[in-house]
């Protein structure tokens, strides 16, 4: 059984007991426990079920590489699936559930898959479920989907109550890993004066050294670690962060740090996770190494564990996973586990060393304790079951015959170590195969390159392939100093701390145990625990021609589980190389991709949720609109009222009321979102003549002109009224969406093409609240305001004629009035300072009462302009429409030699007489044409599609006319006036519409010019 030891446990505080539940069962642990150590202390070895075969699984590792012990944590809105028990700090009230089983962890119906595993080999699904066709979607796939997946999905309606944030940080050197290598590197770099940030994923510093032993500068590693931490904390140029994992390295020295602030204390307030967006000149990866499992049959039975991890449980948390332990190894390090267990009073029943020659001093030390060590031996198999009971031993160099079976309840295995090279590799760092130690290590000659073309990552310590405390510390001191130097700080040789540990004999690569294990054993030998990939699967992939390592990975799913192959990649690669009669370096590795360890989506999204998900741009009249029935419509980042609905009124009713009232009385539109750009300078006229298709340089001061803009590619991009303010100043109105883009467009041409032209542009859109005062009573209300204020601007027809503007006072407000109309009514657009916008609006509403004033929204705006046949950018245009299509030839200056779009219009397709042209459309029965409908032509095209001859661009119910009106683009449309064409609806109904003039109302324009 696994249990708490009476002694040991450097990270736990036995005086602080913590209650938690697992699968509904109440358990106790101590402060400082991980969920995994606490479960082991409660003899809960089995912690989950595997992905495919639903085999019972226990914890294998003690850190973030853990593939098996995944938990569903918490409940309600704080529920989260797939949390690793090994990286979950225990807290009071923690509720954990194991996952991927039904009805219970102990009895799982889907474990039937285990019995069928012979059929469910790698890629079986590519070969089956092909016939009959409908069954894949309706039967096979639903079953596969249900049995796949890990934790339960959060609730459909879950609203995460936690918050997240980002933090930008700039450093000269980022040291990743707070083990002894990281601390030594940090110290060396910091002493050179560099600004250093150290990131440690755990809540404790020092890494493996306190567990592995040895001495640093003559003391136990803890002593040096504390001393060094104190020194670093005292340095102004050093920042230390624990619980903060470097999750990825990106181009140009960008590093993401994933800081878990409240996972260990949920609900304490403040953000749950903080994503550090770090920009640094140099990165030192002191990320350590990860132990590899050994590949023997039954290596996935709960109780089989990585040897060093077992040591972690004993030393860090005072927990032993078993009472009778078999140690299996191909290297000396696992002997430390044997010693550690022995010291803790746990029986080590056998050390099985695959090497014929065995180990060095560590082995001797183990033998001295009276522990039986066998050389050249292997584990043939661990007996299947919910936990280890029997282990069969055989010769390593054989097929697994002549087994000796021994009783044991845990197995500690070590297949050697793999440097953690992920961060080195994320941004293109290359690796070399180290034959002696059988691992990939960073190739210092091929580092990832930064913006200056130089390497910006330095690997150090065991992450750089160093074994032994002395070598690790020496390498780390050099790495730290070099990083600082590369970051531009004068080189400063820093003496490394002196590390001493027992010398180790060479390891021997063992990729399969026993070396010639037969197929029955290989089919029980796991490479990727979570995804249930076995040695036989990789061999099958190779046999079937999936020879590239990427093919094998994808065919077998090796390394694609949530641990991203941290334990399985090298072992799998070795089997693949062997199957192909090749060598590991020739087969190569798969690409390491960020993140190193999964990070929460919440953290990635950061603060952007709820209110501040995206900026909402608000006009000065926003709050009034909101309080007065505005039915909001997002327009870019703005929100504009679609209509102002009154209680008991439908949207449609509201729009009809607004339309009629504006035509008959007085309507107000919040037009503040329209873009307003000042263009000024001696060359401003020349410049605007290039920007607009029509002539702007000839516009007289005080007057307005409607202008069109095309892209260089000829398509209509924006429109608006331009006013000439003085001799060298124009004010250009743009569409709502165009304010920023047209401003940028103008700046682009000025800065990158005509940089010698003297023109300045300023975007003053938001300086003004702009109100369109529209309707037959428009002048009356404004004159009333002036009368109340005791005078103001003369707004009469003669003093301010149509298409002119004036500055002055209206109702006591400093204002600019434009006599322009997008509705066909008498209309003034009045700009006042934004800070006074609400007050001006209030004054208009108050004064307008006697004229039956009503605000109107964007839909009414659209209908009013459509009744007049005015085009709308974004409705009549869609990026494929040219002015000629909209019969706007009159706005294409023939006098100008050049303007943006002029050359483009000469191309054959744009000059094609068959282009669809703008017309009005009236349904024969007065109904409203469906939006976006296409007009049917004759026959079908070569691809069997119905030929079409036009489409609806705008369609509305006109309350003014009491019928549907529409505009559309129709082939040869203007020549086909009176013809009736057909628009099929999506429901099969055919709408018949007559082609008519697009001006439906007040064709002579009498109403606006009064």
């Amino acid at each position, binding site marked *: 059984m696994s249990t708490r030891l009476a002694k040991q446990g450097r990270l736990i505080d036995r005086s602080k007991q913590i209650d938690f539940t697992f699968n509904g069962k109440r358990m106790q642990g101590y402060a400082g426990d991980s969920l995994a150590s606490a479960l082991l202390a409660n003899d809960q070895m089995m912690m989950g079920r595997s992905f495919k075969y639903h085999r019972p699984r226990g914890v294998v590792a003690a850190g973030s590489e853990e593939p098996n012990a995944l938990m569903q944590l918490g409940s309600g809105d704080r529920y989260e699936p797939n949390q690793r028990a090994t990286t979950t700090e225990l807290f009071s009230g923690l509720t954990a559930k194991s996952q991927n089983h039904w009805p219970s962890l102990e009895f799982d119906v889907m474990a039937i898959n285990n019995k069928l595993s012979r059929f469910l080999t790698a890629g079986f699904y590519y070969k089956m479920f092909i016939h009959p066709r409908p069954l894949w979607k309706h039967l096979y796939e639903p079953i596969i989907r249900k049995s796949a997946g890990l934790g339960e999905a959060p609730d459909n309606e879950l609203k995460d109550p936690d*918050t997240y*944030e*980002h*933090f*930008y*940080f*700039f450093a000269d050197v980022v040291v990743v890993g707070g083990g002894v290598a990281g601390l030594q590197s940090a110290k060396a770099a910091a002493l050179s004066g560099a*600004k250093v940030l150290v990131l440690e994923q755990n809540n404790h510093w020092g890494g493996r050294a306190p567990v592995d032993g040895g001495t640093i500068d003559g003391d136990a590693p803890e002593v040096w670690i504390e001393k060094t931490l104190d020194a670093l904390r005292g340095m102004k140029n050093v*920042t230390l962060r624990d619980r903060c994992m470097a999750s990825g390295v990106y181009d140009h020295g960008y590093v993401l740090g994933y800081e878990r602030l409240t996972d260990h204390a949920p609900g*304490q*307030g*403040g*953000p749950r996770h*903080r994503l550090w*967006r770090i*920009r640094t000149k140099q990165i030192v990866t002191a990320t350590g190494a990860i132990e590899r499992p050994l590949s023997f049959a039954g290596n996935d039975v709960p109780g089989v564990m990585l040897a060093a991890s077992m040591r972690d449980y004993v030393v860090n948390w005072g927990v032993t996973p078993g009472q009778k332990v078999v140690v299996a190894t191909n290297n000396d390090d696992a002997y430390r586990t044997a010693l550690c267990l022995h010291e803790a009073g746990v029986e080590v029943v056998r050390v099985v060393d695959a090497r014929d020659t065995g180990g060095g001093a560590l082995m001797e030390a183990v033998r001295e304790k009276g522990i039986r060590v066998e050389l050249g031996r292997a584990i043939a198999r661990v007996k299947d079951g919910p936990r280890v009971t029997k282990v069969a031993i055989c010769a390593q160099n054989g097929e697994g015959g002549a087994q000796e079976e021994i009783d044991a309840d845990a197995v500690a295995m070590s297949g050697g170590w793999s440097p953690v090279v992920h961060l080195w590799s994320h941004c293109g760092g290359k690796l070399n195969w180290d034959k002696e130690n059988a691992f990939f290590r960073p190739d210092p000659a091929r580092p990832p390159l930064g913006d200056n073309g130089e390497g910006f990552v330095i690997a150090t310590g065991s992450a750089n392939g160093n074994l032994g405390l002395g070598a690790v510390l020496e390498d780390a001191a050099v790495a730290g100093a070099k990083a600082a130097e590369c970051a531009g700080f004068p080189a400063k040789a820093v003496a490394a701390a002196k590390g001493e540990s027992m010398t180790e004999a060479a390891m021997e690569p063992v990729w399969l145990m026993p070396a010639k294990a037969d197929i029955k054993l290989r089919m029980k030998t796991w490479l990727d625990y979570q995804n249930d990939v076995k040695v036989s699967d990789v061999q099958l992939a190779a046999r079937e021609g999936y020879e590239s390592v990427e093919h094998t990975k994808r065919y077998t799913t090796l390394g694609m589980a949530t641990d991203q192959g941290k334990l399985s990649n090298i072992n799998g690669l070795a089997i693949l190389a062997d199957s192909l009669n090749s060598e590991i370096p020739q087969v190569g590795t798969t690409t390491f991709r960020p993140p190193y360890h999964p990070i929460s989506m919440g953290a990635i999204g950061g*603060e*952007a949720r709820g*209110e*501040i998900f*995206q*900026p*909402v*741009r*608000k*006009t*000065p009249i926003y709050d009034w609109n909101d309080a007065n029935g505005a039915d909001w419509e997002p327009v870019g*980042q*703005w929100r504009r009222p679609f209509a102002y609905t009154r209680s008991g009124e439908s949207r449609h009713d509201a729009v009809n009321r607004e339309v009629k009232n504006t035509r008959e009385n007085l309507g107000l539109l919040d037009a503040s979102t329209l873009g307003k750009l*000042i263009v*000024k*300078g*001696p060359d401003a006229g020349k410049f605007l003549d290039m920007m607009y298709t029509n002539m702007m340089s000839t516009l007289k001061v005080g007057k307005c002109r409607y202008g069109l803009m095309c892209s260089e590619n000829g398509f209509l991009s924006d429109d608006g009224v331009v006013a000439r303010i003085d001799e060298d100043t124009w004010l250009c109105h743009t569409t709502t969406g165009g304010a920023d883009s047209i401003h940028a467009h103008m700046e682009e041409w000025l800065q990158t093409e005509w940089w010698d032209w*003297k023109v*300045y542009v*300023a975007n*003053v*859109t*938001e*300086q*003004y609240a702009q109100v369109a005062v529209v309707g037959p009573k428009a002048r009356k209300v404004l004159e009333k305001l002036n009368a109340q204020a005791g005078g103001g601007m003369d707004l009469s027809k003669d003093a301010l004629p149509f298409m002119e503007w004036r500055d002055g006072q209206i109702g*006591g*407000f*400093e204002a600019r009035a434009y006599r322009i109309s997008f509705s066909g009514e008498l209309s003034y657009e009045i700009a006042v*300072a*934004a*800070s*006074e916008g*609400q*007050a*001006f609006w209030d*004054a208009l509403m108050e004064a307008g009462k006697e004229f039956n004033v009503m605000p109107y929204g964007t839909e009414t705006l659209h209908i009013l302009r459509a009744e007049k046949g005015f085009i709308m950018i974004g409705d009549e245009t869609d990026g494929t429409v040219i002015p000629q299509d909209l019969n706007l030839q009159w706005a294409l200056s023939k006098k100008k030699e050049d303007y943006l779009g002029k050359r483009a219009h000469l191309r054959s397709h744009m000059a094609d007489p068959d282009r669809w042209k703008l017309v009005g459309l009236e349904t024969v029965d007065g109904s409203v044409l469906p939006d976006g409908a296409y007009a049917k032509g004759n026959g079908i095209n070569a691809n069997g599609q119905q030929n079409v001859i036009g489409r609806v661009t705008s369609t509305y119910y006109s309350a003014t006319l009491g019928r549907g009106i529409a505009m559309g683009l129709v082939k040869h449309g203007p020549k086909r006036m009176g013809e009736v064409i057909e628009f099929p609806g999506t429901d099969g109904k055919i709408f018949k519409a007559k082609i008519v003039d697009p001006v439906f109302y007040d064709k002579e324009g009498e109403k606006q010019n009064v």
Partner: protein
Amino acid sequence: MSNPVTATNGAAFTGIATVKDAGLQGMITLRGDLASKTLQAAVKAATGAEVPGQRKVSLAEGGAAAWMSPDELLLLVPYEEAVAKTAELAEALKGEHALAANVSDARSFFSITGEGAREVLAKIAPVDLSPESFAPGDFRRSRTAQVAAAFWLQEDGSFRVVCFRSVGVYMFNLLSNAAHPQSAVGAY
């Protein structure tokens, strides 16, 4: 003439720092040749401040001039005087190629004061805000979360932030969120 109001109407929030609507502030966008003596004199006359160097703000009694780009300054003047000062600038720069526009009402203006001020901004702007890198008088145009902004550090260690008026409420919410009382980073 009525009482003008800001977009956030005096809002304030205190957490690791205090975020406050800094009220109506006269602001003038001035584009022109920053090396021109005429322009420099006009700026001085309008604000009392010298034309600042690259990425600096020069502060004076009742006014300031901030470096927006090689051909643009943001001038700060009392709100009530912005219209008149804009006209004065235009007059003074007659004959020069220059543009002065009153943008006082087009902007929202905030102050961030208190110990956590640097951290609040560093959560939303991709700028090195450590004391070594960002000192009083430094001015920066950048991005704050999803909107453009400009900010500078005052002598008293507080920041001033300028953004478009339409996103004033967003900016206030953003800054308040970043100033959450339990969100101190402790990085500076």
